[in-house]
């Protein structure tokens, strides 16, 4: 009986601890002091500046990819019902994902490449059912993502083996795959796998 009471008490205690809010705002904004320290650090390490300049451009490309993926997914979700209700427009000519261009040291995992090809093929079929405006946006966004990947690849040619660029490139393709999977899922009437299945794949 005592043991039961103890267990009940411990459970209540654990519940109470778990219910505490993890976040507690500091009484004042710490950012100005942090920013001042970062500026001092940067001033003391000028040798890093040139690397950061191009790296920022590459990261901006990745930001663009993330934004593009979101825009496309949202757009497709909004237009899904409308597109299914419409009669299918004529098949889209020449809408095909550009082949991935990896640098020599960045050959993709064959499994990843196969998944990407499969999703791209499925997407071509689905795109025929989409309203023209949504289809155009999707095409433009896919092209933008591939352009970003090409830019990072070009930077890699100049800085071969740079770990940050390698990471950026792999993330770009990872985001593209996730976006293709999300679009496919949203335009699909049958469950042919989830984006998580695709994105879980190792590059």
């Amino acid at each position, binding site marked *: 009986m005592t043991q039961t009471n103890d267990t009940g008490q411990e459970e209540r205690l654990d519940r109470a601890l*778990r219910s505490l809010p*993890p976040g507690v*705002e500091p*009484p004042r904004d*710490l950012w100005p002091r*942090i920013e001042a320290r970062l500026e001092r650090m940067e001033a003391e390490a000028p040798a890093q500046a040139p690397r950061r300049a191009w*790296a920022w451009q590459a990261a*901006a490309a*990745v930001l663009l990819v993330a934004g593009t993926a979101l825009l496309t*997914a949202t757009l497709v979700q909004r237009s899904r019902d409308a597109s299914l209700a419409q009669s299918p427009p004529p098949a889209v000519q020449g809408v095909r994902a550009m082949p991935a261009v990896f640098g020599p040291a960045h050959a993709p995992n064959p499994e990843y490449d196969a998944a990407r090809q499969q999703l791209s093929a499925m997407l071509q079929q689905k795109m025929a059912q989409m309203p023209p405006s949504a289809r155009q946006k999707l095409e433009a966004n896919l092209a933008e993502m591939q352009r970003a990947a090409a830019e990072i690849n070009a930077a890699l040619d100049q800085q071969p083996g740079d770990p940050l660029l390698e990471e950026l490139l792999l993330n770009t393709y990872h985001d593209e795959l996730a976006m293709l999977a999300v679009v496919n899922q949203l335009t699909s009437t049958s469950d042919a796998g989830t984006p998580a299945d695709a994105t879980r794949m190792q590059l």
Partner: protein
Amino acid sequence: MAEAQAGSEIDRAREIAEERALVEAAAAGSTLAFEKLYRRHVARVHGLCLRMTAQRETAEDCAQETFVQAWRNLPRFEVRSGFATWLHRIAVNAVLAQKRRRFESLGVDGSVDDVIAETLADANVSDPGARRDIEAAIASLPPGARHVLVLCRVYGYSHEETSAMLGIAVGTCKAQLHRARQLLGARLESAEEDR
């Protein structure tokens, strides 16, 4: 239903993609992106530091140090691992380093406990009294027991993760948690009797 699920899936994907992009931009030198990361994570980092140190000024210093160290080490951060968990590890290191530097226990006296408890109880919406009691009881625990309790029970880290963060053996971690819960239970009971 499926629509809502897809919506939340997109929200989650967006959050992850945004965070990853911010981390990459910050690693590439953008303080603007890093400030956005700071705004997203400062409350959790400060909450962790405040509960671990039980001292407001020290907690602020540790939170500040956490973000400075994060900036310094961002280029080495593995983008696919969790940024929040990585920040928490840095925060724990900052707390432990602060403790070592001061050569003092981070235990607190009663007056400071009250301030800490009230600060932490501000976030409560259902029962400020009960939460204040719990926060005060946590703040009054001995540092070792408090660190383990906060990481394991408030922030949900496993014994393995907690022991790795604190640099202690898993067995020690379990023993400290057991001790912390016993002390906490006794102090809460006594607080209830005092009401």
